[in-house]
């Protein structure tokens, strides 16, 4: 490696660090993304003179870059804002896959008897990269509703996953020690892919952000390991930065949900049965529902209304209708606020992005800690397509999968209007006690239609 290239990699590494720093404050976040992208361009540019390209090499690189760019740009620009979390999962998965393939290619090039310090990082990268790829695809499928969001469990699951992990370690040792078996790493790759799927299946859809963040950190480590194999400093530094900051971010995210990481990852084992029976017990009970006119009158003569938006609002693209309702209420002198749970939508910050898109004034968006004491003074808590984030079971039912998650105190409002498409449980797959509360009125229907009806009813009231 020449000095110029080494210096260029150093500049790239500094830009990545500065980019991450800027990304963690609201002011500089967008610039931070540009800073990191600039670092990427420099690192890529510095790599070109390092290599001797064959004609074939240039062709396949061009093909890959063109396809990847088209897929990346179209995927990222065309996706609806509500589907962004699964796009992140997808982009993370392909990165993990790329890291595993790079390691495979290197391992093949080393031949039959690679030195340990070259073979070990390759094997590490193959395993972690494959787990990350397969896990991210399952996370994508769950968020895209191709797979059910409820945890998929079966008896003895922990044992099976444990055996899978043990088999991977065994094969890894075999590949490292008896490397003369050609293509022995294929078995390793297949096992790691299976483990990736098996690891994410039992985790509920509501916990996917944490899982994606963890897999993101894993991909970072796989990339760093590939860097050791290739003796490339840019890969080592950037991959490790992502691995470390991603691990910390994963912890911060599970902290924001009031849970330990272990509980998020392994909490579903053995707990679903309990929750399932609780849910079954709830089916027989009745709920109150009311007409748009009644609810319009209730809203119009309130002093203070707190809107609790959730994913149902997002999928129905109802953020504009919600703002319209807030506008007509404010014209009548009603105070309107939005209570944003940290994980409202599908990911932390997701709901803020959606409401900002509808030009909801920033000062009406209240974070959970700011707004939670206001609910008892509110006349109406209007829950639009949210469910788990207002479920009192998080406070009161120790067996519940969401027990311990901080929730919005919507149940303390004088009246609760619960807008929902049906009685189906939320993303965490559990019943919500609040729907049966004495102050609660259900208003069934698509969030957008329902809000439009309420707007008309308030205007008429």
């Amino acid at each position: 490696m020449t000095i110029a290239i080494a210096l260029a990699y150093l500049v790239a590494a500094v830009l990545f660090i500065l980019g991450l720093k800027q990304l963690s404050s609201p002011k500089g976040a967008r610039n931070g993304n540009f800073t990191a992208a600039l670092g990427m361009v420099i690192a890529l540019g510095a790599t070109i003179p390092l290599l001797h390209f064959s004609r074939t090499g240039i062709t396949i690189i061009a093909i890959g870059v063109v396809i990847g760019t088209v897929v990346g740009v179209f995927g990222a620009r065309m996706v609806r804002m509500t589907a962004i979390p699964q796009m992140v999962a997808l982009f993370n998965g392909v990165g993990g896959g790329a890291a595993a393939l790079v390691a495979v290619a290197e391992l093949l090039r080393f031949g039959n008897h690679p030195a340990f310090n070259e073979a070990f990082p390759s094997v590490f990268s193959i395993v972690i990269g494959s787990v990350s790829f397969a896990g991210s695809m399952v996370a994508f499928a769950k968020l895209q509703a191709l797979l059910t969001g409820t945890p998929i469990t079966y008896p003895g699951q922990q044992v099976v996953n444990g055996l899978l992990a043990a088999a991977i370690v065994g094969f890894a040792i075999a590949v490292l020690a008896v490397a003369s078996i050609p293509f022995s790493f294929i078995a390793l790759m297949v096992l790691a892919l299976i483990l990736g799927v098996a690891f994410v299946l039992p985790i509920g859809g509501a916990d996917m952000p944490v899982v994606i963040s963890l897999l993101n950190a894993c991909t970072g480590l796989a990339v760093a390991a590939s860097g050791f194999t290739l003796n490339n400093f840019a890969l080592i530094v950037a991959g490790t930065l992502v691995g470390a900051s991603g691990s910390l971010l994963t912890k911060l995210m599970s902290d924001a949900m009031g849970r330990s990481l272990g509980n998020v990852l392994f909490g579903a084992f053995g707990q679903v049965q309990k929750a399932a029976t609780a849910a079954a017990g709830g089916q027989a009970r009745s709920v109150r529902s009311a007409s748009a006119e009644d609810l319009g009158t209730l809203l119009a003569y309130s002093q203070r209304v707190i809107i609790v938006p959730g994913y149902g609002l997002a999928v129905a693209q109802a953020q504009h209708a919600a703002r319209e309702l807030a506008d007509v209420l404010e014209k009548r002198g009603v105070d309107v606020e939005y209570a944003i749970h940290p994980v409202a939508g599908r990911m932390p910050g997701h709901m803020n992005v959606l409401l900002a898109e509808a030009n909801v004034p920033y000062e009406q968006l209240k974070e959970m800690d700011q707004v939670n004491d206001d609910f008892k003074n509110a006349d109406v808590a209007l829950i639009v397509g949210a469910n788990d984030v207002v479920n009192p079971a998080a406070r009161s039912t120790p067996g519940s999968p969401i027990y311990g998650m901080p929730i919005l105190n919507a149940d303390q409002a004088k009246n609760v209007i619960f807008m929902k498409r049906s009685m189906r449980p939320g993303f965490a797959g559990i019943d919500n006690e609040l729907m049966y509360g004495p102050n609660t009125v259900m208003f069934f229907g698509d969030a957008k239609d329902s809000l439009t009806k309420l707007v008309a009813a308030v205007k008429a009231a």
Partner: protein
Amino acid sequence: MNNELLNELTFFVLAIFVGFEVISKVPTILHTPLMSGTNAIHGIILVGAIVIAAGAQTPVEIALGVVAVTLATTNVVGGFVVTDRMLEMFKGRQPARPSTPQETKK
């Protein structure tokens, strides 16, 4: 253990500490964009993919090279673009609209 490996280990360990320090204080609403941003950064594996693709000769090497470059490019480009799209929403916020609830209160 040769010198190069020693250097690499040094970078690795220092980068772990920097990675932890640099995002230690981050507000909840930025968790998703930050995750997405770091996601784009590990797209640096594109450098590795280009390295293996550049000298690819056998059919297996060519296949690995083209798939790895495609996946890695998707990671980099998609990662940065989707992060920018999220952050766009934070920047373009209109100033508070001219509604004055106090005055219209009856």
